[in-house]
């Protein structure tokens, strides 16, 4: 018996599973840094988040939707890691599980599963937790190098949090900066923050891997980060005592994690190059507006979620240039 099917008869070496695996691999350097600074807490939260996300996906597909179980495609694994990376390593276990339920159940499965969700699932989970449990979600453990005990960590605000609080009290940036970790600490990740967002260095290593594997392109991250640099730069030049400099803004908070790993989520970002750039600039703009003028010190999650909502519109209006189109 011969198989008779239409062309093409070959398929490239690409699969959803491989893409998800690559994202998971790319997140590993940041995970290692997190373990170094936050110890067992980082391992515990990440493990629980991953297991809970995969379990919820399995249960919902098998018993609620009664559809083929696709938990092995790796997307729940990635959502789990990203959810863990977006919460403090000190939050209670049940909270992680609840976050996972919202991530998979509400943000992903209720829309029809992989590929159909309009919003980034991990970010929906994180924002749900942030709004529901603001105290636990902003209680950041202080980094302690190579301390693997379960001892209660001393906690404090993030760099962005301290800055916002101080500025609201009428302090100037240069005075506040004395109390805030330097650029090197921010770059390496020796700062308070969500489990996986602190180390710009580790995240960049992962990003380079994703770029090399062609899982992501530069359009979204670059336009996101550059628009943050330009906008905060303008304000900084205008009044450096009220506004922090652009380097501080790109190294602190969740910008690196958001720009390279969350905004680039294929499902919830535009598909054409032009669309990706518009999306990135929108994310940057909203992030800066929230950071500088909003009630929250950090705005990356909200910015990405708001831009997620605009993606269908962007996809509709940004068409690739058709070959042979007669331009008049």
């Amino acid at each position: 018996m011969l198989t008779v099917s239409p062309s093409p008869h070959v398929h490239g070496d690409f699969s959803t599973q491989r893409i998800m695996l690559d994202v998971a691999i790319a997140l590993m350097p940041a995970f290692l840094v997190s373990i170094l600074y936050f110890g067992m807490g980082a391992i515990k939260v990440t493990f629980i988040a991953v297991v809970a996300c995969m379990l919820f996906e399995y249960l919902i597909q098998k018993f609620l939707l009664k559809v083929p179980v696709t938990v092995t495609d790796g997307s729940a694994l990635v959502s789990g890691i990203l959810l863990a990376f977006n919460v403090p390593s000190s939050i209670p276990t049940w909270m992680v599980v609840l976050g996972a339920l919202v991530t998979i159940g509400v943000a992903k499965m209720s829309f029809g599963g992989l590929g159909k969700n309009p919003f980034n699932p991990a970010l929906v989970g994180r924002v749900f937790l942030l709004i529901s449990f603001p105290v636990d979600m902003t209680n950041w453990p202080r980094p302690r190098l190579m301390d693997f005990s379960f001892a209660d960590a001393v906690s404090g605000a993030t760099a962005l949090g301290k800055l916002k609080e101080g500025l609201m009290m009428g302090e100037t940036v240069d005075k506040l900066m004395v109390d805030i970790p330097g650029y090197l600490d921010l770059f390496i990740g020796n700062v308070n923050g969500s489990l996986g967002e602190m180390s710009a260095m580790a995240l960049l290593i992962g990003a380079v891997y994703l770029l090399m594997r062609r899982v992501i392109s530069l359009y979204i991250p670059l336009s996101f980060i550059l628009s943050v640099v330009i906008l905060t730069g303008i304000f900084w030049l205008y009044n450096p005592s009220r506004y922090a400099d652009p380097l501080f803004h790109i190294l602190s908070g969740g910008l690196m994690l958001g720009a390279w790993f969350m905004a680039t989520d294929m499902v919830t970002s535009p598909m054409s190059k032009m669309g990706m750039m518009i999306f990135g600039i929108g994310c940057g703009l909203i992030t800066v507006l929230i950071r500088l003028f909003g009630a929250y010190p950090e705005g990356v999650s909200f910015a990405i979620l708001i831009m997620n909502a605009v993606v269908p519109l962007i996809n509709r209006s940004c068409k690739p240039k058709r070959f042979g189109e007669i331009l008049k």
Partner: protein
Amino acid sequence: MSDLKTFPQGGVHPSDQKLSAHKQIMVLKLPPVVKIPLSQHLGAPAMAVVKKGDKVKVGTLIAQSGGFISANIHASVSGTVSMIGESTDTSGYLKEVVIINVEGDEWEDSIDRSSDLKKEIVKTREEIIETVKNLGLVGLGGATFPTHVKLMVPPGKKAQILIINGVECEPYLTSDHRVMLERADEMLVGIKIIMKALSVEKAVIGIENNKSDAIKHLSDKIKDYPGITVQPLKVMYPQGGEKQLIKAITGREVPNKGGLPIDVGVVVQNVGTAFSVYEAVQKNKPLLERIVTITGKSVKNPGNYLIRIGTSIADLIEAAGGLPEDTGKIISGGPMMGKALTGIDVPVVKGTSGILIMTKKDAKRELQGSCIRCGKCISVCPLGLEPYLLYQLSNRRKFDRLESEDVMNCCECGSCQYTCPSSLPLLDYMRLGKLEVGKLIRARKNN
């Protein structure tokens, strides 16, 4: 070779698998019987002019062109017409065929069978076109468009450049590659003939960089043929597509929605066609044989064979060491755009560039997942379409919208489906969409 050109938009890099690239062209022994389909070209089928019991020689006209876009067909063997009947061709449909029992190998006297190179072109423009038409030449790159039609530039248009397609971007296939290596002089004379017919001063042979031996060989040879140049190209599928090749070499874009290469002053011919133009015009030989690649990972002796039209593919497979046991699929053409065959008792026709045998494992399609909206299909589409959207619209039978999203521009190169990480049958649905939109367009015209 520093200035490699390519087309700027889209494209993929399938592994090239040119297993038979170094195999010299061999002559396949005469089969006991040939089945010659009357529809081997784009356009109207030819009409048989022989009947059962007629004796034919190699080169005898057996079917007359059935219209302006059609082509004559000649006997590829000598013998007796045993039947005019029906047989399955590479498309899988039953087609009218002339079946000839082979007796000896007697050629028509008008054909010059000597192997000397005849460089001087004595025929006039009109005579060239007439000869090409009479001797049944069609494009050998795969589309099998009657060659004489392409040589007649429509009034009001002017050809400026002749592009010779030596790209052979389909993985596995090597017949054009071998023509460029082994029939270089004949092919170059053929190009000069086409240049004369089109009254163009300039011809460019486009060759991908994975055939560096052919680039080198032809670059040496062209010194004797003023006006012809060789343009090395970066390897990129589907560069052998007419529109992509024109863009790569001249930077010009053939207008979409029905534009033709001549609209930008270009005519494209395949290297194999150029060779057959030489044979027709200089040697008076009809298109009755061609070079076919037989290949595949499981094939014992992949190779390139000179085959009489109408020979069963089974004979070709036999010559290459027989049909491998774990054969899952047999393709006429390359793996990206070729057609899967329903069986091996199918005749080689003018458009058969290669036969690819795939193992059972390779023949299997991967399980399809859901679209993760990665946009890879958009970035690889050489025509700037959005395959994921066309797939959805076709799936939901929204054919009006499908038309406004330019589905008819799709060239069916398969780059999108090749790339899709979720293994979606993008092209299957786009083909369906094109079919339905085509019906809509025709219905509108008729009203």
